[in-house]
Structure formats: structure tokens, C-alpha cells
């Protein structure tokens, strides 16, 4: 293929240009000499021979040019030449070049960093085969209730039988586990799943095997477990012979059958941390019943893989059909007032759903920053092109076409963009660790952030596009000029009104964009402060909290069996006594939950408020607490009394909070009335003995929920939290607390130890993260807008030098000149602010979901932001204004 060969040839010649030219020169020289010799042999005189030869053979330089045309790639040569020249020009004005490159690097770096977040969290599919077929299965009981309810064993088995909906279904049951037999009892994150869990996800183990028939056929929990890579490294020392090793969890013996590869994570929520141990079982022993009961709902959720060819919509329709059939078939287990329904949602969507809007908002903000950066550089280039008019005019006069000049300028801006892009990538590489430090833990995959292929492509693409775009416009503008006036030295007549207007428009656009970002940041900051200042309902200072797990061994003969309520109560009493005895402790308490520790699941309750004989159904958060719980937290008692030691279960008592009293016992005294908790068919009634103040249970920015408290001595649980109020510094007592708990029972694991103030701060992390990020973007944009205004006004002052000199000569005062300049700048700023307010008002509609007690058009925020921008604009105009007053009228008037 001759054409392909010639292309190869040309590319090869590119690299040996000089050699080729030298060779040709030698060849042609030889040719001429040979012709001369031939001429002389034919009888001509020497000079005549040479002249005849040269005439015969034609122009040498022309020949060289035609030759060069054959092997060179014209446009590539021109480009290389432009690039070299451009680099020289840029290096000759280092100030401009540095500012332009830095601005570009900032824009590209920030947007690449955020894009890497978008890519990691939102765009990257789950690392399983066919991740789009994976669904999360949740169950609701009352049609309008937002809270999910667990499911029962028969319901799960029904789902597994729906082969026209699911190819596989596995339960997902996060649990605490207590790993004993090691130096310090370790709390591990365990996950009970169905035996087909790993087959469902389609992941093979790194060592050993996953669950097999042996594990599937056991009625209780099977001995064989699978470890995560991190658990294997941390708790088993990375021992390559770990398969078959036995260990104790909750005093039961388990055996390792496999280890998962590093990077494998359970795609879903866990209790505290990443899953360490997966185990399975037949669900026919504790905590389940021997014969499965349909209304005994314990399993929190399930995941499934859709059957091939079934769309999610079709699957949901079939599930609804199945639910209706099941409700019909088992009327005893499904009351007519309830509508039990399973819901299948895409797994990926469920995982990222919460953070999706925040992340897209972040991306929108960073694109605004990028636009501002581009506008700044474009402005800088426009300004510079005015200074280079003479150079361009000379080139034009020497024969450069307009497209050649435009190409030259575009190459310069692409060079800036390229270097800026590399700088930006470096920035993007270093930003993620900073982002991770600020980010809330609940964002999935965030620890997998990296600058990888798609991010690189994004950065390079953005650099190229922005470089071309924002180089093209100034280049087109700069190449349009008249030769006559511009060739003259010192041609300052340059700025045509249209050019000035274009620059002003650019700067106004920058101000508008900054206004939008600043307003967004201001609103988010306000929301954060509002949330921060919300009264939590208790006194968080000087309180330490932590969690414990009372391990329930399946083997009833095991010592310290916390299966029995008496044993648990005995432990709680002893812990309270010991904790109170620590010097420096004012009060201590135990409870099943502490406030602000995370999301909680509501229980069904029945309020005996006289509305009808069965009572009003509803839901509330239920917590079992010890006697000093409210005193330790500093929660106010509104009516009645709190629990005493006498409330040990003989007469069921309960406390409710003000929200519950309002919702279910409005207009009456709840004390003496009853509240019941529904478990399946049975209702556990308790008499209300008091009303306490509302406490923020999940997070500061959620409204108060109804809560019900029961005494721990009446009903105990296996997962407990302790609260210790100290007189002075809370963290100093942590080791003493641990010591006391271990004295009571050396095998109890203690984890999640924080001060209440830390918990409070952690509950607001996501809000703070967004506010900080957008705030820093806004700060950057403010700086750039200020620079933009400064640049434009400075140029105006320079170009109006004559006019200013004239005015000064005619008697204008310094103040009048300053006012004139300031007015110029403030007019631009006001125009920008005006447009920014309009645009921002629309944009803040997107923010609505993230605001807390802040109206999107909050006048205080908007007003102060506008004032800030005006102040910055005024400051930016100040320096050029001062320079204007220093103009010497004589010099200005004389100058051309």
C-alpha cells in the first residue's frame, strides 16, 4: 500500500530533517559538478560551463523547497513552529504566563478532583458481574410509613421461591460479634447471610471456599465462616494456613473455610464498620424459632439478583402480585389494616441515593469555578492581545493570513492549557486525601478515590476544550485590526468600544458566577450553623459514651450466659455501681441506645388514648434505659417521675417524650394511661409514669420523633451503651471506665468510645463537608472576580491616560478622578451582582434539599454576600484609582 508506506516514510523523515537536507545539498552539489564537468568535456570554458549547467538545471533553492514539500507534513511543521514561537513569547512575559497557568491549574485540578469523586461514587458500577441486576429488598408494613420493617423466615423463603422474579435471594443480617481468645476481646462486624450469598454476588474467595452444602444443611448457625481480607490480616496475622482454623465468637466455636480477596466489600449497610466475618445457617434455632413463624419478623433485609430477562419494573409488579396473594392466604398473620409489601430497588442506587444530590451539587459548583477560571484567562489574553497589536500588524503586513495569526494565538492558549492541565492533575492527585479527611464516612467507596483513566481523560479533555475555546475567542478578536494605525509605534488608539464592552461583559460574568457560588456557600453555611446550634435536648458536655456487646453463646451451658434476663440485669447493676464509684464521675447510666449515634429503626406502638378501644397505632423509637439515664444526659423531666430501682418488671412502666405525648395523647394527661409495643400479634402494655423532654435521637437536623423509654431492669438487651458524666475532662476517664467494665466481665468488648460532643460533631459531618467545600470554591471565585475587576479597571485607567491628564489639567480634584474610576468598577460589579442574583435564585432551588431552617431566598445571606462582593470590587478598583490620581497631566497630554 503505497500511501501507507509514504506516510511511514514521512514520519521517519520528521526525525531526521537536518540530515535529509544536508544529504540533498550534497547530492545536488555533486549533480551540478558532474554537469559542469560534462560541459567542459564538451569544450566549454570553465565559467561558461558552470553558467550553462546552472541554467540547465534550474534554481537550487526552489528545488530544495519542492523537495522538502515531498517529505514534510506541512501543517505539522507549521504547528511545531507556532508552538516554539508561542513558548518563547510566553516565557518572555513570565508574570502573565504564571498567573494564567496557575488559574488554569486551579480550575482543572478542582474539577478533576470532584470528577474523580463523581466517578468513584456515582458512575463506577459495583465490582460484581452484571451489577445492574442486583437489587436491595426492603419491606414496609403500613403503606405510608417511611420506615422499613424486618421480615420473617417464611417470608424470606417465599421470596427465594419466586424464581420468576429472583435468580437468587440472600438475607442480610448485620450483627455484632465478640471475638474471644485473643489479648483484648475484639468486637467484630459480622454478617449473617443465606448460603448462596457469594454465588449471588458472583465473587470467588482468595483462599479456601465459600459456603457449601455442609453450611446450608445445618439448622442453627453453621461452623464454617468466611473472613474478610482485613479481618484475616488484623486478627489472624495473615496466616496462609488459616483455612480450617477454629476461633471463638460469642463463646461459640467457628471455623474458617475461606478468605475473601482484598477490596471485596459487602454492598450495603453494616452496623459500625466493614464486615469482618460472614456466616450462615438454617434459621431454625435461636434467635429464630424452631418452627418458622410468619409474623416473627427479625431479618432486617435482603439482597437479590433479578432473574435473567426480568426488568426491575416487571419484578416489582410481580412482587406486588405475590404480596397480595400472601396477604390473602394468611389472614391471621396479615391484619387487614396492614399492607405488607416487599420493595426491590437497584442496589447501587440505594447505596448512593443519599449522597447523590450532594455530589452532583458539588460537581455543579466546581464547573462554575472552572468557568470562572476560563473567563479570567480569556480576559487576561484579551488584555494582552491589545499590547501585541503592533506585532500582529507587522506579521499581517509580511503576508500572514488571518488564519495563521489565529492559529498562532490558539496554540499559545493551548500551551497554557496544557501546562495548566498538568499542574491541575498534580493538584487533583493531592486533593483526595484532604477530601477524605473532611468527608463523612457514610459516603460509599470514597476510600477508593484515585486519579485513574476516566479522571485523566476528563482532565485532558477539559484542558483541551477550554484551551481551544477560550483561546479562540480572544484570537479571533485580536486578529481583526486595521494595518495603518496599528503599525505606528505606540498605537494606543487600539481599544475599540466593542472590545471594551466585551471585556466588561466577561468581568461582569465572572462577578455573576462568583455571586452564585458565594450565595450557595452562604446558605449552606447558615444551614450548618443552624443545625449546629439546634438544642439537642440534653447536655452534651463532659459525657463519655461507648458500646458493649453481651455475647449470647448458642451453647446454653456456656458460662455467663447472657441469654437470661437475670444475668443481664445483674451485669447492668454491677456496671452501674462500679462506674459510679470511679472518682471524678458525677453520674453513670446504661441504655440500649445513646442520642445522635446514627439512624434507628422505629417500633410499632399502640397508644391507649381512648380514641377507640384498640388504641391508636403508630410508631416510636424505643429505648431501654437504666435509672440514672436522664440525669446523666441532663434531660429535663416534664411530668411525673423517672425510673427507680423498684421498676424491675413486676408492673410494666414506661416513659414517653413530649413529641409522643403531643402526637398520641394530645389534650390529656398521659400519666396513668398505657402505651404498648407490638411484636407480631402480641402487645406489650406498660403504664406511663412520666414525660421527658425531646431528645434528638438520630441527628440535629431531623424533627423530633416520638420516643418511648422502658426500664432496663424490666427488659434488657444484648447490645448496650454506657454513659458517664464527669466533673472535668471527659476523655481522661476512658481507661478507668474500660478497667471497671473489664473487672465486671473480662470478655466484654468495648467499642465506639466517644465523648458526646464528638458524637454531636460527627452527626453533622456531611453538612460541614459540603459547606466547607463550596465555601472554598466560593472563596477562590471571589479572588478571581476581584482580580478580573482589577485587571479591567487598570487597563481602562491606562488607556484613558490622556483623558485623565486632561481632566486633571482642567482642575479636577483627586477625589473626582477616584470617584470616576470607582464608579466604573462598581457599575460592572453591580451588573454582575444583578445577573448573579437572578441566576443564583434559580440555582438555589437545587439546594433546597440540603438547607436546614434556611429559606433559599434568605435576605440576610443574599444581602451580606452582595455587600461583600461590592466591598471586594471597591478594593479592586482602589489601586488603579490611586494610580489614576498620580498621572502627571503634562506627560499624559504629550504622549501619543
Amino acid at each position: 500500500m503505497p500511501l501507507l508506506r509514504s506516510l511511514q516514510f514521512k514520519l521517519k523523515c520528521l526525525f531526521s530533517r537536518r540530515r535529509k537536507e544536508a544529504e540533498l545539498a550534497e547530492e545536488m552539489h555533486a549533480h551540478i559538478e558532474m554537469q559542469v564537468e560534462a560541459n567542459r568535456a564538451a569544450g566549454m570554458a570553465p565559467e561558461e560551463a558552470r553558467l550553462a549547467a546552472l541554467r540547465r538545471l534550474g534554481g537550487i533553492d526552489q528545488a530544495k523547497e519542492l523537495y522538502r514539500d515531498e517529505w514534510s507534513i506541512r501543517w505539522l511543521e507549521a504547528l511545531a513552529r507556532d508552538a516554539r514561537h508561542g513558548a518563547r513569547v510566553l516565557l518572555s512575559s513570565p508574570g502573565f504566563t504564571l498567573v494564567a497557568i496557575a488559574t488554569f491549574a486551579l480550575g482543572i485540578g478542582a474539577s478533576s478532583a470532584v470528577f474523580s469523586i463523581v466517578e468513584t461514587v456515582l458512575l463506577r458500577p459495583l465490582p460484581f458481574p452484571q451489577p445492574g441486576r442486583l437489587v436491595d429488598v426492603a419491606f414496609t408494613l403500613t403503606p405510608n410509613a417511611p420506615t422499613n420493617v424486618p421480615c420473617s423466615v417464611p417470608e424470606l423463603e417465599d421470596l427465594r421461591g419466586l424464581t420468576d422474579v429472583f435468580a437468587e435471594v440472600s438475607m442480610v443480617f448485620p450483627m455484632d460479634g465478640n471475638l474471644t481468645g485473643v489479648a483484648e476481646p475484639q468486637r467484630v462486624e459480622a454478617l449473617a447471610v443465606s448460603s448462596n450469598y457469594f454465588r449471588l454476588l458472583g465473587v470467588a474467595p482468595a483462599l479456601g471456599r465459600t459456603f457449601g452444602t455442609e453450611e446450608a444443611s445445618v439448622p442453627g448457625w453453621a461452623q464454617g465462616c468466611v473472613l474478610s481480607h482485613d479481618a484475616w490480616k488484623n486478627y489472624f496475622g495473615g496466616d496462609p494456613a488459616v483455612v480450617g482454623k477454629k476461633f471463638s465468637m460469642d463463646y461459640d466455636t467457628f471455623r474458617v473455610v475461606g478468605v475473601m480477596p482484598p477490596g471485596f466489600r459487602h454492598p450495603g449497610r453494616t452496623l459500625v464498620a466493614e464486615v469482618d466475618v460472614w456466616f450462615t445457617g438454617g434459621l431454625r434455632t435461636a434467635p429464630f424459632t424452631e418452627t418458622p413463624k410468619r409474623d416473627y419478623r427479625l431479618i432486617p433485609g435482603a439482597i437479590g439478583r433479578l432473574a435473567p430477562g426480568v426488568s426491575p419494573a416487571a419484578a416489582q409488579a410481580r412482587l406486588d402480585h405475590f404480596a397480595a396473594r400472601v396477604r390473602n392466604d394468611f389472614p391471621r398473620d396479615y391484619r387487614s389494616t396492614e399492607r405488607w409489601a416487599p420493595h426491590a430497588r437497584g442496589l447501587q442506587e440505594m447505596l448512593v441515593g443519599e449522597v447523590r444530590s450532594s455530589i452532583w451539587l458539588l460537581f455543579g459548583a466546581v464547573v462554575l469555578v472552572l468557568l470562572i477560571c476560563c473567563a479570567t484567562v480569556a480576559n487576561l489574553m484579551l488584555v494582552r492581545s491589545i499590547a501585541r497589536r503592533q506585532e500582529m500588524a507587522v506579521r499581517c503586513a509580511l503576508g500572514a493570513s488571518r488564519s495563521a495569526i489565529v492559529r498562532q494565538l490558539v496554540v499559545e492558549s493551548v500551551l497554557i492549557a496544557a501546562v495548566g492541565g498538568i499542574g491541575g492533575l498534580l493538584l487533583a492527585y493531592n486533593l483526595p486525601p484532604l477530601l477524605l479527611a473532611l468527608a463523612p464516612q457514610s459516603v460509599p467507596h470514597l476510600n477508593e478515590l484515585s486519579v485513574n483513566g476516566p479522571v485523566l481523560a476528563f482532565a485532558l479533555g477539559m484542558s483541551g476544550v477550554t484551551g481551544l475555546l477560550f483561546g479562540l475567542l480572544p484570537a479571533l478578536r485580536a486578529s481583526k485590526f486595521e494595518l495603518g494605525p496599528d503599525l505606528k509605534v505606540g498605537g494606543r488608539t487600539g481599544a475599540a468600544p466593542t472590545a471594551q464592552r466585551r471585556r466588561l461583559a466577561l468581568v461582569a460574568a465572572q462577578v455573576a458566577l462568583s455571586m452564585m457560588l458565594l450565595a450557595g456557600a452562604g446558605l449552606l453555611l447558615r444551614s450548618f450553623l443552624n443545625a449546629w446550634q439546634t438544642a439537642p435536648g440534653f447536655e452534651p458536655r463532659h459525657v463519655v459514651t461507648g458500646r458493649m456487646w453481651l455475647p449470647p453463646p448458642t451453647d446454653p451451658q456456656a458460662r455467663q450466659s447472657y441469654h437470661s434476663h437475670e444475668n443481664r440485669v445483674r451485669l447492668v447493676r454491677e456496671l452501674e455501681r462500679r462506674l459510679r464509684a470511679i472518682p471524678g464521675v458525677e453520674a453513670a447510666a446504661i441504655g440500649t441506645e445513646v442520642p445522635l449515634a446514627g439512624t434507628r429503626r422505629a417500633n410499632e406502638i399502640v397508644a391507649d388514648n381512648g380514641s377507640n378501644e384498640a388504641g391508636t397505632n403508630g410508631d416510636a423509637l424505643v429505648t431501654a434505659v437504666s435509672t440514672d439515664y436522664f440525669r446523666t444526659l441532663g434531660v429535663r423531666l416534664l411530668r411525673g417521675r423517672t425510673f427507680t430501682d423498684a421498676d424491675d418488671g413486676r408492673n410494666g412502666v414506661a416513659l414517653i417524650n413530649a413529641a409522643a405525648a403531643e402526637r398520641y395523647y394530645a389534650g390529656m394527661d398521659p400519666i396513668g394511661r398505657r402505651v404498648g409495643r407490638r411484636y407480631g400479634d402480641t402487645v406489650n402494655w406498660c403504664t406511663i409514669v412520666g414525660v421527658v423532654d425531646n431528645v434528638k435521637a438520630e441527628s440535629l437536623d431531623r424533627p423530633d420523633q416520638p420516643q418511648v423509654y422502658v426500664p432496663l431492669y424490666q427488659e434488657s438487651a444484648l447490645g448496650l451503651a454506657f454513659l458517664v458524666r464527669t466533673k472535668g475532662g471527659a476523655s481522661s476517664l476512658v481507661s478507668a471506665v474500660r478497667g471497671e467494665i473489664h473487672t465486671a466481665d473480662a470478655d466484654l468488648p468495648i467499642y465506639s468510645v466517644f465523648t458526646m460532643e464528638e458524637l454531636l460533631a460527627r452527626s453533622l459531618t456531611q453538612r460541614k463537608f459540603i459547606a466547607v467545600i463550596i465555601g472554598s470554591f466560593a472563596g477562590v471565585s471571589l479572588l478571581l472576580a476581584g482580580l478580573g475587576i482589577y485587571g479591567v479597571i487598570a487597563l481602562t485607567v491606562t488607556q484613558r491616560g490622556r483623558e485623565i491628564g486632561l481632566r486633571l489639567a482642567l482642575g479636577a480634584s483627586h477625589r473626582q478622578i477616584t470617584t470616576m474610576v470607582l464608579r466604573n468598577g462598581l457599575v460592572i460589579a453591580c451588573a454582575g451582582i444583578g445577573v448573579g442574583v437572578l441566576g443564583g435564585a434559580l440555582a438555589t432551588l437545587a439546594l433546597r434539599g440540603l438547607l436546614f431552617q434556611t429559606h433559599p431566598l434568605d435576605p440576610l445571606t443574599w444581602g451580606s454576600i452582595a455587600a461583600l462582593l461590592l466591598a471586594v470590587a471597591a478594593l479592586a478598583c482602589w489601586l488603579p484609582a490611586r494610580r489614576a490620581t498620580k498621572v502627571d497631566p503634562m506627560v499624559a497630554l504629550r504622549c501619543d
Partner: protein
Amino acid sequence: MNKEKSALLQGTLDMLILKALQLEPMHGFGLSNRLGQMSKGVFQVEMGSLYPALCRLEARGWLKAKWGTSENNRRARFYELTAAGRKQLETEASEWSLLSSTIDAMLRAT
């Protein structure tokens, strides 16, 4: 006619160069002499046409070039036909004869 520079199409010159090199490798001077000889003085090829054509043919892989010594002990670059070049020459020659006979016939017709 000797000094008259007739206009030659690029492609035709390429073909003639290939033909001229059919027998033996030659350097630039020898080649231009041979072309003049073969055309009985009609075609006097200038350097500005010869060397670009030689570059073209070399790029397409129909010629091979090597430095060597001429008869007068001068260092010169010798050009030689490749196998692909020989095939190309045949193809072009047959195309040319078809073309020229067709045009001849058309011109002769009334």
C-alpha cells in the same frame, strides 16, 4: 527542441524515471542524462522536478537509494528499482498505452 522545457505531468515523469532505472541503478546526473537520451533531447529534466520525483518514488517504496561512488570518484546517491517498483512500472506502462491509444483514436476521428 533541445532547450525547450516541455511540461510533463508529475505522474508521467515518475513512470519515465522508473523506466530509465529499469536496467541499472544510477545517480541523479546520470538519470537526467539518460532521460534526455531516451527522449532524444525532448525532455530536459531540471533538478526542481527530478529530485522531488525521486523523493516521491522513494517514499512510495518503488525506489531504493544508497550512497556510492560515481565514475569520477565522486560521492553520489544511487537509485535502484525495487521489486514493487518493477511491478508498478509494468502497471503504469500498460495504463499509459491504453490511455494514449484511446486519445490518439479520439483525435484522429472527424
